[in-house]
């Protein structure tokens, strides 16, 4: 066979360096999503997420059945006095559903995206496939985000409904459908999703940098907890600052709080999304330079 014949039969494939094949990337992300969603929602790994998200629901059921509800006049008072502080957090360090439970769930879900693969010695299977590393990061992040958003949307809705239902279906439906209830519920679900987006990106990055990311996570929690006493500029370098300004029912901040200009919703949401995009870009860069080394894990 001559060289000319070889040249005609095997056409050299030139790498497409000028542009990206977005169709291929979308198919690859869809493939990663299929694999990862099953892992995040149906495997043993997902137990922690379900436990954290739904264990408060159990307590709310007991509360709904107990006479403790009698001291409240109706759903509006119950949401303002019970649901809002439980969701947003109790001063002074704001331990609440969002700053504690969603924080911890994001930690376990997003940090384990790469760490669990390293511990199970299975990351190289992904790395051997012809998928760009940033595509892999995006796919894994989206899968964990969809899982967390689904679970927390359902749990937040359940918590909200359980707060309203003890006052009778009539009062509850009137408050939710004709009063401000539906608006509050939608906002709280949106806040839960925003928390998943923000914390998720941070913990994905931590999982790529640290073998044991718990100690850095503890520092992040401490930073988020003392956010309200930080100077105005430092307050803005956190996820909770953008979320707290969007609470439909404002929470007391305590006497230590430093009063700052509230960030408007039109700044908070895009600000958090830009922050997430930057963190994910950094994570993609980090994943691109990561070598698979299972030693010491």
């Amino acid at each position, binding site marked *: 066979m001559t060289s000319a014949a070889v040249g005609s039969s095997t056409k050299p494939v030139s790498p497409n360096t000028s542009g990206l094949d977005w169709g291929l990337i979308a198919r690859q992300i869809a493939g990663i999503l299929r694999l990862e969603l099953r892992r995040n929602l149906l495997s043993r790994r997902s137990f922690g997420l379900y436990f954290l998200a739904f264990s408060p629901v159990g*307590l709310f059921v007991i509360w709904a059945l107990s006479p403790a509800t009698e001291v409240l006049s109706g759903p509006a008072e119950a949401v303002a006095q019970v649901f809002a502080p*439980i969701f947003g957090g*109790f001063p002074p360090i704001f*331990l609440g559903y969002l700053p504690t439970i969603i924080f911890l769930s994001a930690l376990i879900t997003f940090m384990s995206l790469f760490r669990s693969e390293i511990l199970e010695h299975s990351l190289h299977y992904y790395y051997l496939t012809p998928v760009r590393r940033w595509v892999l990061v995006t796919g894994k992040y989206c899968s964990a985000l969809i899982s967390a958003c689904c679970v927390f949307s359902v749990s937040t809705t359940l918590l909200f409904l359980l707060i309203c239902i003890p006052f009778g279906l009539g009062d509850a439906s009137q408050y939710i459908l004709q009063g401000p209830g539906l608006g509050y519920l939608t906002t709280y679900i949106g806040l839960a999703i925003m928390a998943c987006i923000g914390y998720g990106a941070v913990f994905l990055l931590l999982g790529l940098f640290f073998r*044991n990311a*718990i100690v850095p996570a503890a520092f992040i929690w401490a930073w988020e907890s003392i956010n309200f006493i930080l100077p105005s500029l430092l307050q803005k370098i956190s996820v909770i600052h953008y979320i707290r300004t969007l609470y439909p029912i404002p929470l007391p901040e305590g006497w230590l709080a430093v009063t700052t200009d509230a960030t408007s919703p039109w700044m908070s949401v895009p600000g958090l999304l830009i922050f997430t995009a930057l963190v994910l870009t950094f994570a993609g860069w980090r994943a691109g330079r990561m070598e698979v080394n299972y030693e010491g894990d």
Partner: protein
Amino acid sequence: MAVYERTYKRYKGALTPQWTRFLVLPRYAYEEVAKSKLFTIFFVLCLLPPVIQAGRIYLYHNAAKIFSAVPAAAEFFSQFMSINAEFFGIVMAMQSGLAFIVALFIGPGLVSKDLANNGLPLYLSRPISRTEYVLGKFAVLGILLSVITWIPGLFLYALQSIYAGWGWAFQNTRFAASILIGSAAWICTISLLALAVSAWVRWRPVAGFVMFMVFLGGGFFGLMINALFRTDWGSMINLGVVIGRIWEGLLGLRVTENLPLWAAWVSLALFCFGCVQMLNRKIRAYEVVS
């Protein structure tokens, strides 16, 4: 001597005293811990707050001399920065928080490695019992946490006693006793928690997460129970509140939590008992799978 004559002979050298054998475990564990530069830096930083507080004691007693040119500063240091129960309460609260982070750092890997690699029979086939094994692992954390909790606390008490006179020391022996008892209670609690979690969760990052979750999640659920049922008993599962209440009781500080002091002690005792039971279930030479 011909090679074939070298048969088994019993060791005739000096034996290690039985009661010190558990200290072999911390010795090797510290070698491992010292390899982490990040941890070493953090551990040194943990000693920074007591050093700063020592400076504060020095300033309190020498403000008149140092700020002789600025009487306002001298007055500020001598009047508003008094060394009292609040001072020791703040120091110990800060050191207790740092102690928890140290436990979070090294605790999760203490037992899990031995269990994951079936190393426990190798320990227990030597003249060391299960109790001594747990004691040895406990000592790893206990000694390290002592260095950043009660030892600097007593150092500050001694420093204050030197400056204020031994009369002050005798009048305030309660502070020294509180530092010792409170630190011991906190060290026991977080060390046992770390060991129990490490024994049950074999993946180190997950073990660290569970430890973190017990602290944060317990705090949240405690507050949630209090808010939902309008009670204060939910604080019994909030480790932060429990130890805070114990410090308040020991030092005689203003009570900020409505949890009775006895309930805080009972909660801590039950928590430690639960951790010991968990360890008892897992620390066995062979795991029988039914």
